[in-house]
């Protein structure tokens, strides 16, 4: 099973079950910025842990699932890690928790075409992805944030981003990323 097939299989299983979700991370960033190489896909789902367990059991046998849920450090949400047999590709599935920005991401989610899987899926808005990327703040996250801001240009609602960055203490990172965009863009 290729990474694309794996992501599609999970997506179709989630949608068939009627569970709310958004795809986040690098795959979603490609919808608003520029695609880049990634070794994982990240989903956030709005359901309870047992419901997610039951849903994941419907996946093909080429998926293997880490037996224990793990805690994601930034927001304290639980995540499941799925491995695709024969590839280093992983899919991380986070439960939607009470983190205020995660809740906001869900409320504002958009249906967009995702290039990696060549179909539409739910993703955060460009602004919400930038806010999330600034929170994680690995080098690749900051690059993604910069690409989204550069490509979206004047369509970006900076006031909205700044409000959340002030709450998260990431205004300095936002300034750093904006400074990295070459003049004239």
């Amino acid at each position: 099973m290729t990474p694309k097939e794996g992501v599609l299989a999970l997506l179709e299983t989630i949608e068939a079950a009627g569970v709310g979700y958004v795809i986040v991370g690098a795959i979603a960033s490609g919808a608003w910025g520029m695609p880049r190489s990634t070794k994982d896909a990240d989903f956030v789902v709005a359901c309870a842990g047992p419901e997610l367990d039951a849903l994941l059991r419907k996946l093909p046998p080429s998926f293997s699932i880490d037996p224990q849920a793990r805690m994601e450090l930034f927001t304290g949400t639980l995540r499941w890690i799925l491995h695709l047999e024969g590839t280093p590709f992983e899919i991380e599935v986070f439960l939607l928790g009470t983190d205020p920005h995660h809740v906001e991401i869900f409320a504002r989610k958009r249906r967009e075409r995702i290039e990696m899987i060549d179909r539409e899926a739910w993703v955060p808005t460009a602004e919400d992805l930038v806010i999330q990327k600034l929170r994680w703040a690995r080098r690749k996250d900051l690059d993604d944030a910069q690409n989204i801001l550069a490509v979206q240009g004047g369509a970006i609602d900076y006031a909205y981003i700044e409000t959340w960055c002030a709450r998260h203490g990431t205004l300095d990172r936002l300034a750093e990323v904006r400074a990295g965009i070459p003049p004239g863009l």
Partner: protein
Amino acid sequence: MNPYQPLIDQLYREKVLRARQRTPGERMSDVLELSEMHFAKNDPELRRRLVIVRTMEERGCYGPPQPRL
């Protein structure tokens, strides 16, 4: 400062401007490829290097690289 920074910035600007003009259904990877071809149209060696870099970048996201080199 990286001596190649002005070149990197120029290419980045080219990619961003083309990405903004992307038509519905047009693949972003095709947009980036077009940017490189236009950017390095007078420099075959630079164009070849850009193709190699992008192919390596796409490896993880789009499966095995296509035989484009």
